């Protein structure tokens, strides 16, 4: 059994998903190869010096940052070179661009948003959700020698410890990058950083109207909390993306996460479930957020908000 793990980095820093993938690979008990596709892969080496990696392949390309064609071709060549049984990439916005393409072209077994892995005899079994995360499923990959899995962020803890991986080099031949990185725009400029806050007051669709947002901004101030939101509020343009918790937003880990009117879509949970203490208030007793919360209350969020406002 050999597992190929693809590292993800941004602006010279490994992204957390990389070490999570290493942890996921451990479940498969095979030789783990971590591939780093970069202009200067060696410069990232110290960030991946963790236990659980048998070999690091430095794939040299011309681009500093992620470009779709580059990763796609590099991954194809890595697979050709190493013939791994399992390829693990993050279920991230970068990987969404190229990993399914590689799986389709090479005819690999494929599943994305995988959050659990195990071996059942000779079979690889992965777990993922369907139907808006209301049901889970075990999936396997009959007839596939090689399987590419996209792993849900924060499903595994980051790998730790001291490594001792051997290094190898691979010069990838890239025929041309047709989707080129031009620039990064930091939309978060000037706004608060919700990832460093100790206490987040997070609100979601349950607040109903944009006009109500102000009330919660005030409440956050009263409580000494930082206001964060779930995706729908960002989609509506009510709040900047920098305040968004979740898979397509930020992953947060405050000491206290107080969620008002957030039902707990899986993408949201992925961004906050490792918070120290999670308190959820929702009018729907079936809301998924109660599954990850430490404390929950089935109540009208406005009423609770009003009462809280009075207490401080």
């Amino acid at each position, binding site marked *: 059994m050999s597992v190929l793990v693809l590292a993800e980095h941004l602006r010279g820093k490994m992204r957390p998903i990389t070490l999570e993938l290493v942890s996921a690979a451990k479940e498969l008990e095979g030789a783990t190869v971590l591939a780093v596709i970069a202009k200067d892969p060696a410069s990232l080496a110290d960030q991946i010096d963790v236990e659980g990696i048998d070999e690091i392949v430095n794939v040299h390309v011309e681009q500093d940052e992620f470009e779709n064609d580059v990763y796609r071709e590099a991954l194809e060549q890595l697979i050709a070179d190493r013939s791994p049984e399992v390829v693990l990439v993050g279920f991230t916005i970068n990987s969404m661009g190229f990993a399914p393409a590689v799986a389709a072209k090479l005819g690999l077994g494929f599943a994305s948003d995988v959050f659990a892995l195990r071996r059942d005899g000779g079979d690889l079994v992965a777990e993922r959700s369907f139907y808006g995360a209301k049901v889970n499923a075990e999936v396997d990959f009959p007839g596939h020698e090689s399987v590419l899995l996209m792993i849900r962020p924060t499903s595994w803890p980051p790998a730790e410890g001291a490594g001792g991986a051997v290094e190898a080099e691979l010069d990838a031949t890239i025929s041309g990058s047709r989707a080129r990185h031009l620039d990064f725009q930091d939309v978060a400029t000037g706004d608060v950083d919700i990832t460093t806050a100790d206490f987040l007051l997070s609100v979601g669709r349950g607040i*109903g*109207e*944009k*006009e109500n947002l102000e009330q919660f901004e005030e409440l956050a101030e009263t409580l000494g909390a930082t206001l964060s939101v779930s995706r729908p509020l960002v989609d*509506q343009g009510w709040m900047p993306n920098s305040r968004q918790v979740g898979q397509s937003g930020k992953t947060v880990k405050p000491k206290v996460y107080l969620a008002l009117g957030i039902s707990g879509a899986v993408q949201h949970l992925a961004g906050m479930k490792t918070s120290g203490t999670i308190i959820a208030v929702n009018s729907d007793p079936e809301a998924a957020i109660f599954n990850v919360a430490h404390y929950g209350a089935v109540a009208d969020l406005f*009423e609770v908000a009003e009462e809280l406002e009075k207490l401080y």
Partner: protein
Amino acid sequence: MQDLTPGLLAETATRDTFAGLETWEIVLWYVLIVISVAIFLFGVARLLLKYRGGRGHVRLGNYRERATNVARVVFTHAWIRRRDPLAGIGHLLVFYGFMVLFAGTVILAFQDDFANPVLSFDFWHGWFYKIYSLFLDVFGAALVAGLAYFAFKRGILRPFRLQYWRPAEPAESLRKQPRRYEIGDWVFLGSLFYLALSGFLLEAFRIAADNPSFEVWSPVGWLVGHGFRAIGFEGDTAAAARIVDWWAHGVFALFWVSSIPFTKAVHMLAGPAGVGVKDDRAGNRLAPLPEGAKAADVGYAFIDSLLPKHLLDLDACTKCGKCHAACPATATGYPLSPRDLVLDLREVAEGSMGNRAALGIAPEFPEHAEILGTIKPETLWSCMQCMACVEICPVGIEHVPIINQMRRALVERGEMDGQLQQTLETIYTSGNSFGEAKRKRGRWTRDLDFDVKDARKQPADLLWFVGDYASFDPRNQKISQALARILRGAGVDFGILYDGERTAGNDVRRVGEEGLYADLAEENVAAISACRFDRILTSDPHSFNTLRNEYPQFGGSWDVLHHSQLLLELIESGRLKPRKGLGYRVTYHDPCTLGRYNGVYDPPRQVLAALGVELVEMPRNRDNSLCCGAGGGRIWMKELKGEDSPRPSELRIDEAVALGGIDYFVVACPKDVTMYEDAIKTSGHQGEIELRELSELVYEALAV
């Protein structure tokens, strides 16, 4: 000689209309009459052309009924008197004063220009002349008295409804209108004053000049004339003044008549005409889309999309402001006043296709002028379709259907707030506004210790159409359960549709999503038609209205009952025996769709009486009930009320609490339950008053 004159003339009591005028002057007078009538007719023709420029046709049929109704409304002032009897009397004085004076002029013209010259029949003298004089004088005085009251009301009392304060900013092109209205109203009042006064003066000058004794039959003129004589204003001086005033009165009167189609006076024509062609079910039964409608056929996006009747409505408006005062949106600072909406539309109609357009008077609008924009979307979305405006309008304006048609055009363009769009999508996919799974619709029956019949599988006497709120909302589910237990206890054979029911669509229609409404109605009609039952029961007035009044358009005509009617029936027939004397002091809120829409005012009150509770009415009750703010789909939209205003529901709770010592705020509508439970908390009256649905009180009264 002079002493004898009165006696002599008394024998031949009459007067010469053209006394003291040269022949050429008389000729000029007739020329002026012809010009005046021509202008009047031109104006009326232009008005008719304007109405014809609308889409569709005027509703006809039932001519006799319509004519009788117009006569009743016009001659008794039944609609004008409502909720402001003083203004009604004032207008009655002006109306009959004006009508009698006008009739007098017509009689005179008949005598001078036809009866006498053609038939040699001269009746305008002697007793007839005396009675005629007295009649005209008295009614002339009535006219002046009425006008004086109106001037007092407008200038001193200045009631809210006569002020041109607007909750919504007017469109740029209409900025100056409110000021113009104010001036116009005074000019109109002044012009009538002038007509009356110059008429009386004419009489007084004549009497001052000749002092005929029989003119004592013109008491006002007599008094004033003798006043003139007392200060020495008599003889030739007075006669000369009479000639001047004759022209001043006559020419102005002709001018006034010719101006009718162009001024506020147009309501004299458009008002009765509007009442005559009014749809007496306007609002409670909205029109379906035309067969095979294309996007451009949907709703009112342009001024010439309006029905001729609705264009006529715009002219009928006298700016009396009764709708403005009745509207719950206006009262709570939503950017809507039904009066302003009508006036703004009138400006567009006149400036685009009316007399003002023909004369090139500003504000002008292009042909086929767009009205969505001049009337802002938020204005249209503010409407609760509660019918308070239509119900009180003394000239039969159909604001609610007009707003509904404009909403249809907005929906067609996708111009609606996100929350509403989401709700409509939800209704489309799940068949209910809660986004709940279809199969959960009958879930509320699970807590009962008996099974509720599935009406699709077994025949039942009553098919209970439960509706969204009563099915899915936890607070309302308890009420549905109470009602089910009551029915069970009374041995009523009833069943429900379970997941075969979809939202009835009353408010989907009122939001303006007619296509979705038609879809819902068709599916419900099909589901209901497949069942065997005698009558339909619903506790939801919104469902009640659309099932009763609108489903016939989709082939479903049934006997539909509101639960207040059924409960009364059961109590009266003795099948329900409430323990007498619950002894509470309660007030009752009339739901718009039950009361104003369908006239069901008494059954809930009679049920309350049978329970032995003391009913204290709020100041606004029955037809004057104030909407809770949920109607017309507003419950699905973002808040638009004024920043410092309470919500309509909060206003209502304040009203109830002010009655003093009220135990329960009683409602008979699931949406009211939701709205007022909320309002009791948000208005700060928690603990002072509680909400009860009618069924809950009945259930309580049945318990041993």
